[in-house]
């Protein structure tokens, strides 16, 4: 009991940080799906992705966080901006970025959210995360690499083929001829 309280005490700062980042992320995510300006949507998405990276650090997954920053904010966002540019979307606000029946998304999203909230709360209510020790955090990258080159070697190889196929496929699709 004492340890649990102690753990909760120690986590106050972390909790505050979490809620601030989470609030920013949610606002940004809403903006991504509601703004009428495509470029703004992409920029709001950067905020969300950065927030996710921050949450990774809070969750003691800094290798994933760094990968997130490099792959998403570095590469994927550039791709998106190229995509926007090459398809000549208007830089200003657009009138018809939504479907005619876009309201269909509201009930579906809400029902989905409700189901998820119910399940999550039902399963994990009161579960407290025990902080990993500094040594554990420090060894996590080692463990990841061991996992990749051990149990998950075949999936890793398969993934490399997926990436190769995607690269070839993207080139074939985008080629002008």
């Amino acid at each position, binding site marked *: 009991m004492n340890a649990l309280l102690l753990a909760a005490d120690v986590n106050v700062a972390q909790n505050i940080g979490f809620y601030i980042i989470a609030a920013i992320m949610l606002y940004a995510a809403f903006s991504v799906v509601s703004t009428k300006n495509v470029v703004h949507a992409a920029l709001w998405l950067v905020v969300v992705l950065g927030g996710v990276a921050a949450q990774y650090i809070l969750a003691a997954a800094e290798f994933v966080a760094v990968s997130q920053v490099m792959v998403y904010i570095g590469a994927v966002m550039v791709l998106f901006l190229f995509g926007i540019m090459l398809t000549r979307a208007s830089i200003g606000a657009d009138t018809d970025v939504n*479907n005619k*029946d876009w309201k*269909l*998304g509201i009930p*579906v*999203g809400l*029902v*989905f959210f409700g*189901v*998820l909230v*119910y*399940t999550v709360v039902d399963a994990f209510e009161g579960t407290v995360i025990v902080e990993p020790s500094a040594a554990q955090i420090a060894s996590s990258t080692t463990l990841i690499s061991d996992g990749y080159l051990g*149990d998950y070697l*075949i999936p890793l190889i398969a993934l490399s083929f997926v990436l190769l196929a995607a690269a070839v496929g993207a080139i074939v699709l985008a080629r002008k001829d």
Partner: protein
Amino acid sequence: MLLAAQETAAAGWFLENAWLIPLIPFVAFFVILLFGKKMPRGGSEVGIASMVAALVVAAGAAYQWIDRVDSSHGEEVEPVIRQWVWWQSGGTRFGIGEHIDGLAIVVLLLVAFISTLVQIYSTEYVKGDRRYTHYFASITLFSAGMLIMVLAPNMVQLILGWEIMGLTSFLLIGHWWEEKANSEAALKAFWTVRVGDVGLLVGTAVLLGIFGTLDIKGINDSAAAGQFGSHNALMWAAIALFIACIGKSGQFPLHTWLPDAMAGPTPVSSLLHSSTMVVAGVYLVARLYPVFHVGLEINAVGQTFNLIAVIGGITVIVAAALAFVQNDIKKVLAYSTVSQLGYMMMGLGVGAWTASVFHIFTHAFFKCCLFLAAGSISYTASHHSFDMKKDMGGLWKKMPITFGAWMVSTAALAGIPFFSGFFSKDEIIDSAKHADYTIFYLVGIVGAFMTIAYMTRATYLVFFGTPRGGAAHFMGVEHGLEHRDDHAHETLGHDDHSDDHADQSDHGHDDHPEPVRGRPFPFAKYDSPWKITAPLLILGTLAVGSGYLNAPAVGVHWFEHQTESSIGLPLAEHEADGDNAEQVSSEHAVDESVGAEDVGAAEHAADSAIYSVPEPPKFAWGAAAPGLLLVLAGFLVSLFLSLAVFGKRKNVLSPLVGITERNKLFGAGHRFLVNKLYLDHLYEKVIVHGVAYPVSKAAYWFNQNIIDGVVDGAGRSTKRTGEWVYRNIDQRLVDGAVNASGMVANESGHALQPVQSGKVNHYGALLFGAAAVGAIVLILLNV
């Protein structure tokens, strides 16, 4: 790293390295594909070399296996198993390696040997083909697939080989895909077999669930020892696996792909239908025999039929009936293959394991030989046609090697005594009788009757009677050559000539230049080139000789002795009331060991050594007599029917066929006549009408009036039954079921059409909405 090294001290190099056998052709496939076109002979040399190398290793392994059995002194001969980790996922490791025992050795040797001959044959047959290199690549990979499957120590490798075969059979059947019929046949073969393959996957999954292992030896041992949770589960596993065998081995409901698969080049048909592909299903049953035997309670007390025997039995009869109404020589052989596979399945279904495996062995030689002979005919004589009625007839004179090989193989197929098919088929039939499966005994002998009948019909149409179409042209060309050579030559039927010369006047020799082809053997200069006839000679010899590895009629049980340890079940002496094998197995392990130890005692012990079927080794002519009488009857019925029906339809003088062969006088008169070429037509008419016609009339009268009532009637009804089965069962019932399932899919598609708005967003909404609803249902279920 070795997954499981059940290594034995003195297994011998070839046995330990038998994994090279499939590896060599597998590597050769890539070599041919990548470098074949740059090679002087288009990659065929690599294919043949790889098959020869595989054959050498297989022969070495066979030699060492025989040594191993002989030096075991009656103890149980352990298979040689080596496995390496192929891949792993999570904690499960999947092995690849080899599992060598008597059964595997037999089929390995068979596949390597026949593949070698077929590839040599192919170098001539597909010479100049536009996809020559690809052909050899595919056929090499095909053999590799079969070898991988045969060597499989576990189900995963077995499925791998099985699927490689499925893929390459598609490539080979559709080799000439520019013609729509060919590509359709390839697709049909592929999909029909895929239907069965679902059963293989399901059955394997169930086996993994029951036994917790994918190793074939583990599965067999556990099944034979009764170490499984539920017998029902084992039964369903056996049924699922058997569905796969139905698809692959062309058993009754899924046999339709096999005759269509004749669209491929003839060597491919020959390889597919003799030692590989279609045998895979039978091999699977033989390999996992304890699963099937225990799962389906074969040889249980009082059992009169079981799934395997019933499917096999139906296939024997239906396919043989269908063979009657085919005009395409390859289709006759295809249905014949289906029918013979039915025999093998039926044999396995009644517990005659050794006989069935031996039938795989003998059948491979004579059926391969028959297909290659058909290919030889179409290549040399009938202008690449396979139509027996339009383009063949009377070829026996000009193609002595093809004819001889064909006749020997036909005799073997028909089960005529002292040819190989007799020893294996008769043993299956005999075993059915002794295991108290009376129905299948009857099916067996009726099947034997039908077999010889349709083969006689085919033989008559191809080699005797009047040459027609392409064959007539061929015969005509060769006549011209004969005259130039001025050799003493033998006669043909007079009637042949009336057609020949009519044909010659239509096409002269010159407007049909000889195609570039290899040299024939000097003693058969009108026959096909030697690359075609040499395999025929070898296979023809084996069609006789292979039977003597296990010939109960002459007291040889060698084959049985070499393979009996592969059954996976203990051998049992047959009790008069059809006792179950497992119950008496322990006592008979002793019997068996005594038999192997002492050659003198081997005779007696081996008499009871067939699994729960004691008699077949103790061969009795009396027991075989009903079958043999029916074979004789079938021959006579079909012969007279062929003479009456085909002869009459082509030409009023048809009965002359018999006369010219019997009467030397006509032969001599005829020889005289051919030298006067331009008068031949007239003389033919004079001789034929003046002399031969009355004689033929008499023979015809004899045929029609004396034998007609019994023979013709019986024959006609057989033919009508065959046609009826083809029309109603094959075309309506089977195809109808297929069409009905298509209809259902079509209708349900129409009903669901409005959902398909074509808009991605709608699909997204449906997807996530359905996921949400599904989640709610799961939550409600779990609350």
